[in-house]
């Protein structure tokens, strides 16, 4: 598992532009909203969590196809399926690498972008914590979609059609946490639900992904 993770990280580091493209995509998308809506800070504060979360969702989507596509193309994936190590762990390793490459930078950047939207420090903390809990879910669930659409016609568009509906609960609770905090309700409930989603996804998603991978390699 660690070997797969290290290998994927190394590959990602060798091709820095792909990673950075997703990151800059996130920055640009979130920066477009204040330009489009206008610089009224009260309004921006209100839409900030939603905009940042949607940006994170879309930025995660960008990297999903890469998770298996190149390995599928050069046959590495088949060797992984045949290897004595359970596929579950290999998939978990790939998921972890994907999250470290595309999820974690978003989490680190989010507070900075949140300042653009004039969020107060406590809301920024809630937002970051929510993203920290939520982005692994995005990677894990997205992997299922990536495995299902492997080698399928029009895979990229199809992937977003399959995965985005499954992202909605994460989006609702993630953005809801910040809104609940700013309205004085406390973010605890939403964050707990996000953590519950993460626990569920950690357990079930790699399992579903392995099943999907075996089907697409048949």
């Amino acid at each position: 598992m660690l070997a797969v993770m290290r290998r994927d990280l190394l590959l990602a580091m060798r091709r820095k532009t792909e990673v950075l493209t997703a990151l800059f995509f996130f920055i640009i998308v979130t920066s477009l909203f204040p330009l489009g809506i206008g610089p009224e800070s009260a309004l921006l504060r209100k839409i900030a969590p939603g905009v940042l979360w949607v940006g994170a969702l879309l930025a995660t989507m960008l990297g999903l196809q890469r998770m298996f596509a190149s390995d599928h193309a050069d046959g590495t994936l088949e060797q992984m399926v045949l290897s004595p190590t359970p596929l579950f762990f290999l998939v978990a390793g790939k998921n972890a690498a994907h999250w470290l490459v595309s999820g974690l930078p978003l989490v680190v950047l989010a507070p900075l972008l949140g300042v653009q939207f004039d969020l107060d420090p406590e809301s920024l903390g809630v937002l970051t914590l929510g993203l920290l809990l939520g982005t692994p879910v995005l990677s894990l669930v997205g992997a299922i979609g990536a495995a299902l659409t492997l080698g399928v016609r029009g895979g990229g568009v199809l992937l977003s059609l399959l995965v985005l509906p499954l992202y909605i609960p994460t989006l609702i609770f993630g953005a809801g946490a910040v809104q609940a905090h700013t309205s004085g309700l406390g973010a605890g409930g939403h964050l707990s639900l996000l953590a519950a989603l993460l626990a569920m996804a950690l357990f079930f998603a790699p399992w579903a992904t392995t099943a999907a991978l075996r089907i697409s390699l048949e």
Partner: protein
Amino acid sequence: MSNRIVNWFKFASPYSFYPVAGKMMPWFWALAAVFGVAGLWIGFFVAPTDATQGEGYRIIFIHVPASWLSMFIYLVMAMWAGIGLALNTRLAGMMAQALAPTGAIMAFLSLWTGAFWGKPMWGTWWVWDARLTSELILFFLYLGFIALQAAIDDPRRADKAGAILALVGVVNVPIIYFSVKWWNTLHQGSSVSLTKSPSMAQTMLWGMLLMALAFWMYSLAVALKRLRTIILEREAHTDWVQNLAEVRAPANLTEVPA
């Protein structure tokens, strides 16, 4: 297994299920028509006008059955998908594929009639409340399932990939069902429950149940029809399909000179 009176596994083969589906279909059509006429009659002429909502509430006779069916069909679809994955039967995958469009129509109908109901009652076509949103997700899940199956050329692979998607999406169904209890929003709580007496007039309840039955029978009939078409399509290379009367008849017709 062989000493049972009916060997259910026999019907797991498209060859033996095709004629059975053909025989069952007219019955379901007839039942759908009977229940539908009875339900509409009660809905329009017998059920009393609602005290607070006036005549507008009568859309309930379409809205509630469609919503029920949209969730129920998804569960059935996921069940067939699971059976297809576990037992590797061809018919189960075809069944799931046959159910998906009907389920999508039900979800769409539920959202559409909901919008028509919401406009006079809540003063808005759409609110972002939990039940509406989760029903919308359900609609997207159906669309994703159909799109995934359509994108994969190998039907067996399409079945299995779709099955995994259906099983992943099944998490959403309890969320829709309980959303009115978990989140207190604009959408009213359910009027029918198994544990306490319903909060509506008897005739209204009967109308709704009859309409639900009608929708159910319609879904069965349409799904079986679609299943038969899928069987014909996928088994077109086999002898038994080519020897079927309905497959040969059109071929003869084309030979008649114009």
